[in-house]
Each structure stands twice: as structure tokens, then as C-alpha cells.
């Protein structure tokens, strides 16, 4: 298992390098100069600008610039926000926990919905339950997150007035009330993201379970005379989790996309809404850094999925 872990960690390096090359290429190919703002500013003399360029290495050959840039990114030396003049890493670290919490909670919700529904549907394929679940799953992942978000706001905030539709970082309340308020304001963002994910997951789980349920070893398990429940949980679901883990990992980029939109709708102060406001205010260092962080998160989740995979499937770690 240790060697498997080390191998997986080593395999991350080319991925990080690859993603960084893509990011840097995009940046380098971009027309215009990130310092255009300074150029048009009459208060900044040309010599100062040239010095600044030189000190930042903007006139170096491209590969040197890439290496410098990569090391700066890896060191967490991400520069200052053009807008708030705060170091970008502080800005991101401040907001990252919220994003992780929202994504984590919605994943838990998605799994809580998708596992039982998908398994139950797969054990009764083409039953009424299966057909309803399947149709609802299609509806779920055909509803874009931004529309679901607006619908929930319309229903629960405006009509029923149950939940606030703006997420607040600083809650006035304390103690239990604080937890309750936190819970109430998190419900809608987490639901929007969780149901979207859950809908896709239901279909993954269902088809993975259906694939396993027909295998010979399940008949062997039945021939053992153990209860059907144990056959399903121990011999079907346990094996079906292996492909599901991979599929969930492949979904990660889509989940982040959904998280950005959700944060924007409910004004959740995570890195997603930070990215949008940075794009709207031309804050290049922040945009670059947030994109880089998202890319790293995807790689991190892929690593976690790989480790889970190795843990779930004994054939992998022994190979």
C-alpha cells in the first residue's frame, strides 16, 4: 500500500506540471499586458514601468518566465490583488474553507440521496420506482444549478420566507443560535449543489450496481444462504463502489463549476464568488491563483479517489 501511495504521489507531478503549462500558455498567449493599466496611467513614468517589468522578469525568455512563475505559484507567492491590495494567498486561504465546506456538505447530501435510491432502483430494474427515480435523475441533472438556485430562492425565501437567500459571513448570533443560523443559510446552497450531484450519482450507482448484480460471485453469495440484504450490501454494493469512486472523481471539475455558480447566486464568500468578482474587476493575480487552486483541488481529489480505489480493490494495491 505504501508503494502504491508513493507511486500515486509521483504520478501527480506530471499532472500538476501539465496543468501549470496549460495555465501559463493561456496567460502567455493572452493579448495585451497585465501592466497595461499602469501604462495608461500618466502618474507612472515609463522608466518606473520598465524597472517594474524587469524586476518582475516580464522581459525574460518564455521558459525562464514559466519556471519562475511555477516556483512562485508553488511557493504560494501569488502576488497582490489589484483591487484590494491584499496578498492573494491570504485572500484565498480566508475563503477556501467555506468552499470546501459547501462542496463537502453537498457531496455528503448527494451520496445520502444517491446511494439508497440508486441501489434500490438497481435491485428492482424497470419497476415503477426505478422509472420514477430515473426520470427524476434526468430532471435533476438537466436543471442547471443557476436555475435551481433561483427557483429555491423564489420558493423558500420569497414565498415561504423560511431561509435567508444571502449567505452572511458574520452572523450576529452566538452559541446554538449561531449553529442554527449557519445551518439555515447553508441549506439552499448545499441543496442546489447536492441535488445536482446526487442526480448524476443516482445513475452511476444504479448502473454500477446493475453491472455487479449479474456477476457470478453474487450467485455464489446467494448459494451460501446468507440473507439477501447481506448479499446486496456485502457482495454487490461493496464491489459497485469501486467504479463509482472513479466516476465521482471524474465529476470533480463539474462539481467545482457548480460550486462557483452556487456561491455566486447565494453570495457565499468562497473562492468561487471570489473568482467571479475578480473577473468582473479585472483582478488578474486573483483569477490566476484561484484557477490554479481549483486545478490543484481537482488533482487532490483525484489522488484521494485513487487511494480509495486502491483501498476498495485489493487487486490494485498488490499489482
Amino acid at each position: 500500500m505504501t508503494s502504491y501511495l508513493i507511486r500515486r504521489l509521483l504520478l501527480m507531478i506530471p499532472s500538476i506540471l501539465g496543468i501549470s503549462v496549460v495555465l501559463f500558455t493561456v496567460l502567455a498567449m493572452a493579448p495585451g499586458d497585465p501592466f497595461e493599466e499602469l501604462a495608461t496611467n500618466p502618474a507612472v513614468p515609463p522608466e518606473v514601468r520598465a524597472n517594474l517589468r524587469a524586476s518582475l522578469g516580464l522581459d525574460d525568455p518564455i521558459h525562464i518566465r514559466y519556471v519562475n512563475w511555477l516556483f512562485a505559484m508553488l511557493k504560494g507567492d501569488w502576488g497582490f490583488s489589484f483591487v484590494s491590495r491584499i496578498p492573494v494567498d491570504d485572500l484565498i486561504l480566508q475563503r477556501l474553507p467555506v468552499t470546501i465546506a459547501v462542496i463537502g456538505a453537498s457531496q455528503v447530501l448527494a451520496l445520502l440521496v444517491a446511494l439508497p435510491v440508486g441501489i434500490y432502483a438497481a435491485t428492482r430494474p424497470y419497476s415503477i420506482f426505478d422509472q420514477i427515480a430515473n426520470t427524476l435523475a434526468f430532471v435533476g441533472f438537466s436543471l442547471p444549478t443557476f436555475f435551481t438556485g433561483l427557483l429555491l430562492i423564489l420558493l423558500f425565501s420569497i414565498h415561504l420566507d423560511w431561509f435567508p437567500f444571502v449567505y452572511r459571513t458574520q452572523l450576529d448570533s452566538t452559541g446554538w443560535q449561531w449553529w442554527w443560523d449557519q445551518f439555515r443559510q447553508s441549506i439552499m446552497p448545499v441543496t442546489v449543489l447536492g441535488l445536482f450531484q446526487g442526480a448524476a450519482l443516482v445513475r452511476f450507482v444504479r448502473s454500477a450496481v446493475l453491472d455487479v448484480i449479474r456477476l457470478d460471485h453474487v450467485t455464489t453469495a446467494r448459494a451460501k444462504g446468507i440473507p439477501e440484504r447481506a448479499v446486496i450490501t456485502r457482495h454487490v454494493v461493496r464491489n459497485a463502489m469501486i467504479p463509482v469512486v472513479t466516476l465521482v472523481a471524474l465529476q470533480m471539475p463539474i462539481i467545482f463549476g457548480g460550486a462557483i455558480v452556487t456561491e455566486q447566486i447565494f453570495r457565499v464568500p468562497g473562492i468561487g464568488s471570489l473568482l467571479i468578482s475578480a473577473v468582473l474587476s479585472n483582478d488578474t493575480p486573483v483569477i490566476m491563483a484561484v484557477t490554479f487552486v481549483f486545478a490543484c483541488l481537482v488533482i487532490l481529489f483525484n489522488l484521494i479517489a485513487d487511494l480509495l480505489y486502491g483501498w476498495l480493490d485489493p487487486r490494485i494495491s498488490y499489482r
Partner: protein
Amino acid sequence: MAGSTPASATASAAAERPQPGPWGEAWRRFRKHRLAMASLCVLGVLVLAVLIGPFIWTAPIDEIDFSKRLQGPSWEHPLGTDDLGQDLLARILYGGRISLAVGFAAMSVAILVGVIVGAIAGMAGGRVDAALMWLTDLFLSLPELPLLLLIIYLFRDSLVGVVGPEMGVFILIVLIIGGFRWMPVARLVRAQFFSLREKEFVEAARALGATRTRMVMVHILPNSLGPVLVAATIDIAAAIIAESTLSFLGLGFPPDIPTWGRLLFDAKDNLDFAPHWAIFPGLAIFLTVLSINFVGDGLRDAFDPRRVK
């Protein structure tokens, strides 16, 4: 699964006339999927509506009339008006053209790139294959939306300067969305290559002295088209969602172009007193995407009879 399909610009030109057998069979299986059939009808109505609707419903999309702002549905304005008193039905019909155009164009880009990458990898094998597959995996793990935002942010102004705001954003969005969705197609085509290469009729063609290009064009590509068609359908839906997302974030088409996502973006701050403004364009996106997804599911059933029953 032999024959031609409009799915791909490269492939359909070279594909042979469809043999009625396998396609008839696929169509028979497709028709058994009731939701897919219903969705095909819904989709047909939607496409017709955005194509010829503007000729029938001739209300201008940008006529500002403050006396009629934020009105709910009425005979005069079946889907109500927005904050400038503009007719929403006309705007949604117009936006639908953009959404569908983006969907189809981005899908074509994705399929084109995917088929080329997949075909090269499948034909070359070895190191080229390994490198291309590594690239495919890399692209699969790129965070799509942040990169979309980054690229649009960096390139929009210069492209708009060259070809104008509407066309510039259209090209940019289509290229990027397509450029982020070719990976599944590349994998599919490559897998088809590997499995079909060994099959008898390809062997036979090789024995008869068919050239490599000819074999690819005539035998291998038409045979991969079933699964690619399924992927293409899903891609259209994904591209429509991606474009709407960008517009919804205020980063897509210019504000005066009423795409569905843009309508939602404008409507979201008026939810409490003009919910119709958000609901109708939202429903339009939802219905389109849902029916495309169901059609894709029907196609999957039609082309893969071995799939779980």
C-alpha cells in the same frame, strides 16, 4: 452501426450510404424509448419555434416601453415584459437561436477535435497514443469553468476588436466550450479503433489492399459513429448549459444580446416582484437540456443493445 450521420463534419462527408439494416434496427429500439420519442418531439417544437417563431411573433426584442415594465403574462405579452418593458417571448425566441447555435457549434468543435485526436491515437498507437491519452486525461482533470472564465477574461477584448462583439464572443465561447469537451469522444473513437482494427471486415479490407486513409474513412469511422452520436447529443446539452452559465455570471455575450442565461442574470435581482422574468427563460433552458438528454439516452439504448436491460 454502419452508415452516415450528421454528427461530425469530417466523418459524414466520407461515410457510405446508410444500410437500412442496422439503422432501421437502431431506430426500432429508439422508438421503444417512450421518453426519448416524446423528447424528440419537444425538441423539434423548440427548434421550429426559435427558427420560425420570430417571423410569426414579430414583436421587437429591444423596444423599450417603460409604461409596460415588469408586467406578468398577458395577451399582449404572453410571457410578460422585463424592467425596460421589452417583450420576453420575442427575447426568449431570439435567445434560443443563440443557445442552440452555440450548442451545435460547440458540439461540432468537440466532435471534430475528438475524432481527430482519437483517430490519430488509435491509428498510430505506441508513443503517440500514450502522449495523446495523457493529454486527454489532463484535459479531463482541468477545472472547466474557472478556465473558461480565465480565457474569456483574457481574450475577449482582442477578439471582439477583430470580429465585433457578438461574433467575437460566439467564436470564443464555441471554441472554448468545444475545446473542453472533446475528451470523451477521443477516448471513444480510440477504443473503437482498437476493437475494430482486429475485426474481420477490416482485416479483409486490408488484405484487399485498401489504403490506410481509405480504411479509416470507409470502415472504421462510420462504425464508431453510433457511440459518437450519443456523445454528441450529450455535448450539445452540456454546451448549452455552459453558455448559459457564462451568460448567467454576466461574462458571456454582451448585455444587449438576450441569451437565456443573460435573461436569468438580469432577472435574478427582480425575483420578488417579477418571477416570470426568470422562470420562462429558465424553463426554456431546462426543457431543451432535458429533452436533449433523453434523446441521448434513447440513442444509447438504440446503439448499444448489450446495455443493461
